[in-house]
Every structure is written in structure tokens, then in C-alpha cells.
């Protein structure tokens, strides 16, 4: 029977660093957490299992569905693909922290994208939804910063913000699968927010 000394409870640091575990500090939704993490742990599992932030979902655990999308230092990433041990000192925003980060938010309010998703009925089961919303936040920022996508006009001036029409939104959110098929409503929700 294996020993339990390496196993962690749901909260911050327990155990101590060794060959298979390291101490990291993650700033999650503005709050620092210092944890001893198993080197095999990915960010998604640390959020869900250690910090009880279950908003980021596990759809595939293999970078194929986008349900686990969160923002790391402002960029969208698949939380299931990132070893937590490599994220020491990083700033992480999950769906739970989006509203608080939005300009003028009081904490009780929703992020504009969250509100638009509800208004446009941009989900059914809701399982892909936190990932869609975090991904949309990241995609809007990328377009703002002038990152082109596969459907961006090659003639568009580089470095300039890319306007997000429906085709751009569809292309940029294609890493986030929705089996309920809420795509047309998601596109509308994103359009509402960038307008």
C-alpha cells in the first residue's frame, strides 16, 4: 500500500518539496496561493482539486476541447496542458475571477461577456461555457493587439487591431468545442460585447 505523505488536501501547501514535488506560488484571481504541487499536476487539476475552483472544466484532458481554457498572464491557455510546476509566479484568471477583473465591477456583477452569454442563450448544458467565455476574453485581446487569424485579410496592416466580424469570431473560438451546438448564439454574444 502506498504512503499518503505526498497527497494533498483541498487547500494550500501540505507536505514538503522533494524529487517529485515543488513549491509554487500561483496568483489566482488576484489572490496568491503557495502550494506544494505534484510535478505531474496540470494547472486544471490544481485549480479544480486543490483550490476548489471548478469553473474550468475537464472535457478531454488532452488539449482537444477547450473546456479548460483559463487566462495565464492575460493569455488564454488550455489548463489541462500546463504543468503547474512551470507556472510559479504566474497570474491566473479563471471564470470565477472574470467579473472582479472587469472594469468598474463591484464583484456582484457579471463580466460583460457573462451577461451577454446569458442574454443570448449562448449555452445549453453550460459545460463548455466557462472555457468559451475565457477564450473569448483572450481572443478579443489578441485581436486588439493586432494578432491575425487564419481568416484575417492578408492585406490588413500588421500590428493594427483586427476587427472581429462573425468569421473572425468563429475562427478564433474554434478551439472551444460545444456539443450542445450553441455556436451561433456564442458569436452573437461576443459581437454584443465588442460593439
Amino acid at each position, binding site marked *: 500500500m502506498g504512503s499518503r505523505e505526498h497527497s494533498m488536501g483541498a487547500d494550500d501547501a501540505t507536505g514538503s518539496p522533494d524529487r517529485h514535488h515543488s513549491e509554487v506560488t500561483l496568483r489566482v484571481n488576484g489572490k496568491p496561493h503557495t502550494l506544494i504541487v505534484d510535478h505531474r499536476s496540470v494547472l486544471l487539476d490544481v485549480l479544480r482539486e486543490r483550490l476548489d475552483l471548478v469553473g474550468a472544466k475537464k472535457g478531454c484532458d488532452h488539449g*482537444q476541447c477547450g473546456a479548460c481554457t483559463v487566462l495565464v498572464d492575460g493569455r488564454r491557455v488550455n489548463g489541462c496542458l500546463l504543468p503547474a510546476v512551470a507556472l510559479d509566479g504566474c497570474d491566473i484568471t479563471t*471564470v470565477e475571477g472574470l467579473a472582479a477583473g472587469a472594469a468598474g465591477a463591484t464583484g456582484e456583477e457579471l463580466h460583460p461577456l457573462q451577461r451577454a452569454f446569458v442574454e443570448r*442563450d449562448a449555452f445549453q448544458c453550460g459545460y463548455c461555457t466557462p472555457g468559451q467565455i475565457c477564450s473569448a476574453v483572450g481572443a478579443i485581446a489578441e485581436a486588439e493587439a493586432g494578432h491575425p487569424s487564419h481568416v484575417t485579410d492578408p492585406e490588413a496592416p500588421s500590428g493594427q487591431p483586427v476587427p472581429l466580424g462573425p468569421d473572425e*469570431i468563429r475562427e478564433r473560438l474554434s478551439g472551444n468545442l460545444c456539443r*450542445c*451546438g450553441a455556436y451561433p448564439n456564442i458569436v452573437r454574444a461576443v459581437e454584443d460585447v465588442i460593439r
Partner: protein
Amino acid sequence: MADTGTTLGAPAERREGRDKVTGSARYAAEQTDAGRVHAWPVVAGIAHGTVRAVHTGAALALPGVLTVLSHDNAPRLAPADDATLAVLQSPRVPHRGWIVALVVAETLEEARAGAAAVRVDYDAVPHDVTLTDDHPDAYTPEQANGGSPAHREQGDPEAAFADAEVRVDTHYRVPPLHNHPMEPHAATARWDGGRLVAHDSSQGATTVRTVLASLFRLAEDDVTVISEHVGGGFGSKGTPRPPVVLAAMAARETGRPVTVALPRRFMAALVGHRAPTLHRFRLGATADGTLTSSLHEVTTHTSRIKEFVEQAAVPSRVMYAAPHRLSSHQVVPLDVPSPSWMRAPGEAPGMYAVESAMDELAVEAGLDPVELRVTNEPDTEPDSGKPFSSRHLVECLREGARRFDWARRDPRPRSRAEGPLLVGTGVAAATYPVMINPAQATAHGTPDGRFVVRINATDIGTGARTVLAQIAAHTLGVPLDRVHVDMGDSDLPPAPLAGGSSGTASWGWAVHDACTRLAARLAGHTGPLPDDGLRTHADTTGSADADSPYARHAFGAHFAEVTVDTVSGEVRVRRLLGVYAAGRILNARTARSQFIGGMTMGLGMALTEGSTMDGASGAFVESDLAAYHVPAHADVPDIEAHWIDEEDPHLNPMGSKGIGEIGIVGTAAAIGNAVHHATGVRYRELPLSPDKVLTGLTGLTPPIPTPTG
């Protein structure tokens, strides 16, 4: 019903919307009870045979591993009606991917490492996983799924076909398909003394409770199953699946709450799939397109442990007025995973064949495909002779044609090119039966003017919480925000599953009856209400399941415009439009989402989704979301869904038909027919992936790309 004007049919927002967009809605694997541990299955690496030995020493020596369960040491269950739930009960391996062991450990990482360290020895015997329509083991079952007779024949279809002026004689193939809800099947179970409490990702917790009570030899009162939020199911969570049984077993063995969440790659073999269907289709008609004969013969597979027969010939019994008809199923048991329900079982693959064949007939007879369908509209249900409670297929076709601008279509195939792209449009009809099951509900009015409705309905994404509140508010004649709905817990009054597009009708009827009674009691009550309010109960047994003298089905029409890239073979959908006649639509917002969602899955069925049973290994090759292509954002245009007002007094008190499945039903055929119109090539095997499309185009001269294209 009391009429408050806006509650029924109004586009009310989803009640749990806020929880879902903020991440506070918890699903089955997210029940972080104190001391909760994780389990990871080990699945069979052979397609047929027995487990000789499960070597657990290496796994048990790893940090964090608590136990390894296999058929050697797992708790004995009572015999299961559903053989797929008899997990870890015997060394038999009926198919590749069958669960042979379960590792329980403190953390996910430790459980996964433990599972990788388990070594299994097998005695393998030869397997057969390949479906053919002349397979020697093919037999005609007594019934197909849903209790449909396997074989129906009226008149003399062979002779009528032989005599027909216009004939279509063809084959279609729909491959195995996977439901792949975004939330993998998962359960968290704990034992409180002799009581079992399970959070299960399920479409119906009442059945899960019954089955767990039976397997673990408990009274039903000693089992609670909670399915508060469910991340989609599409049929694959319609009855209990192995995770909840394994979680309960492991929790009993370890004395800890245990979560079992299936890794995505195990799902193809463990949660059911849409069985492949081979269709032989023959249509005979007079020169003006009047059908004289229809023969629809389906061959499908099932596993060795369970007979499930995809009822794909059944829609031929509903759709068109051919006087001579045959519809039949045969099934081949193979060493494959057990197939099961996937959104519109029977209708989805069946109508792909029916509506493709009708399109072929239209081309053969030189008729407009919309008019051909109108010509063959029956007066009564062709198979049963029953009158339809309502049937507005023609109206759907006409309304769709108008909105789609069908009249401007040049009917000639391959008549429209835009540079290297060929453009085409297609139409197909859709149908889905009305199903209703008995349910119970209570309604409770409190002295402060609030109302609580209790029923074990499940919201798998349909908006059930919202629409049941609308039905209650409408029946009580009170504002929507005064009504609270408690659901998703087997301790509530029992209710059937969210499946067969029957949920809202079944639950809504019970809610309606309980609220009608409450309204009557409130009306007769004088003075203030007692402190604990007034309560009523309703049970629709006997009414909801009463035989109807009517044939009851929803109908719809789908129109699609596609482009076919002659260089890459890629088909893309430009426009997709559906018009439905589905009784009264109870919530315009969530209904539209369901229609669009169904059509999106139909788009996947047409173009991107297909699974391959590998003859050598017995595995589904496309077992993850990288290989099995669920449509992504960029695949899906702005889909339009419309409906016509349909009054039907023969359904239920709300006048509604189910809407969760019909959206998928005609979509694949409409897209396939559009691809024929674009290319002049008739593809008869789904999905219409670039490899197939290019191969088909090779026989033809590609159009010359224009420099501006």
C-alpha cells in the same frame, strides 16, 4: 389553464444561467466532499476473451494508491438487467475497452499512475467486429429499439416495385457515431452508514436510483442520486453507465467518497454509440412521382452482451403514402461495445436514408424535391392507418422554401460554380415521435405568496428548470418569479428521464396537474394560509401513458446550401435553415437553442463525424476529440430555426411536442442532397469527408478555376 399572457411560450432566461457563466454550477465530478478520492479505470486491451490475471502489486506500491479492484476482489453485485453494468464481476471480456480493473488513489495523478502500473494477462480468442449485410449471424430480432416491430410489410412491395415506372434502388451507410457530451460521464459516491448517496452525470436520476438499489441490494429509500447539473448527454446518459456503479463500489471498499470520471478516450467503448446502419432502399413511383412502393431494409450491429437494434427503418412507416411497403431490421451480434441511444436513435440515420432516396427519386423523375414530398403526403399514418393528431409537414416545407428562396433554384445539378467551388442547395424532411411517460410532482403554496414545485426532472441543457417554472406559473396564474422549481434529485417525486424528447411533456403534465389542483384549493380557501402552506400532489400514471387513437409526431423541413471545394474536396455549409411543426413552443429562447443544437449535430453527422471499428484491434479508431470531429465554431454558419404555430389538442395539457431531437433528423440528408446538387455526384456513405468527396469528383471534369475565384 389560467392565462397570464406571457409565461408560456415567452423567451424566459435560463434560471441557472448565472451559475453556469460564473462557474458556480457544480457537475458530478465536482463534489469535493471532505476526504474525496479518485478512481481511474483500466480497460481491456483485447477484443474478445478472458482476463487470466490482474497484477496489482506495482500499482499498490505507488504513493497514494488505496486499492485496485478487479473481478478478483470487487464487491459482488446483484445480477444486472443491463449487462454493461455488471462491471468487475467476471473475467469475461466482451469487447475492447471493457473495464477490467479500477485503481483508487488519493489524487487524480496517483490514480492515473496506478492504472498505468496495472498489468493484465488475457486469454484472447478470435474476434469479429466487422458488419456486413450478408453476415451469416444476421437475424431478425423481435423488436427494434423503442419496442418497434422489426419487420412490417403491407401490400406487395416487391411486385409493385418491379412494375413501377420510376425506380430508385440504392444503398446508404451511416457509420458508428459517438455522443460525446462535453462533460465526460462521471459520478461521485459516498456511503453514509448503510445509505448510498451518488452525484451522477445522468439524464434521469430516478432510474439510476432504482438500478443502484437493485445492484447493491438496498431499499430504494436508502439510495439518493443527484443530477443537478449535467453537461449534456444526447442519449448516452439516458440509463446508468459504469461510472456510478464503480464509484459506489469503490466508496464502499475504501470508506471514502470516490469520484470516477471517464477519461475521454474510454468513452467510445463504454457509454454506448450510435450503431452503424446499412440501408438498402428501393422506391417505386409513377411518372408523376406518386409512390407505389417503398422498401427500407436495415442491417445493424449489436454487442454480444446486449441486444440493441437501431430502429432506422421506422421513419419509413410514418413519412409517405406508398400503398406497398416493407420496412425491416436485421442485426448482427459482434465483439463490439454495446450500442445505445444517440440523439434521435432510428430517426436520424433512418431519415438520412429516406430523404436521400426521395431526393434521388426527384432527380430520376425530374420533379422538384419539395413538390415530390407534397405529392406523397399521406392522409393517415401509412403503417398504422391512424389519423395524425396534427401533421404540418407541407406547411414546414412551404414556409422553409419561401424563407430559403427555393423558387430561384436552378434544379440542374452542378449548375453553379464560384471559382473552384461548386454550390448547391438541398432539402429534406424531418420527423420525430411524440413520447410521454408518467411522472409525479408536488406543488406547494406558501403564506407569503410563493410557490415551490418539486419533481425529479433533469436539466441536461434543455432549460427544463425554466420551462417547468413557466408551466407552473401559467397554470397557477402567477408571475414567473414567484415560482421555484426543485429538481435533479431522486428524493423528489419520481419522474422519467430527459430523453426521447419526452421530458417537458412528461414532467410538464405532472407539474400542470399538481398546480391545477393547488390553484383549485387556493381558490376554495378563505382566510390566511396555514403556516406550512398548502400542498398538492399529482401522478399522471394512466393519463400520460394512455393509448392514443392518434399517430403523434413532430415534423420539420431542412434546407441547406453548401459549397464543395473541387481542389480539397471540403464541403462547407453556407446556410442551414429549419422550420418545425412541434405543437406549442413553450420557451422561444431555449427552444431555438435546442433546434439549432440538433441541426449542428446533424451537420457533424453529414460532414465531420464518423467512427471506424478497426477489424484488427476491435477498437473504435476515432476515440478522442482530436480524431472524432465534433463540429467546431468555424464549421457552423449562422443557423436559422423557425416554427409554425401548431394547435394540437391530443398531446398533453401544454399542447407541446418534443423538440430536443428533431433538429438532427433531416439535416444530414439536406446537406447530402445539396452536395449532390452542387456536384452531380451522389454520395451514399456518411460523413461526406474530403477523401470521399474528392474520390467521387475524380470521375468528372473539374470546372476550370477562374482567375478571380
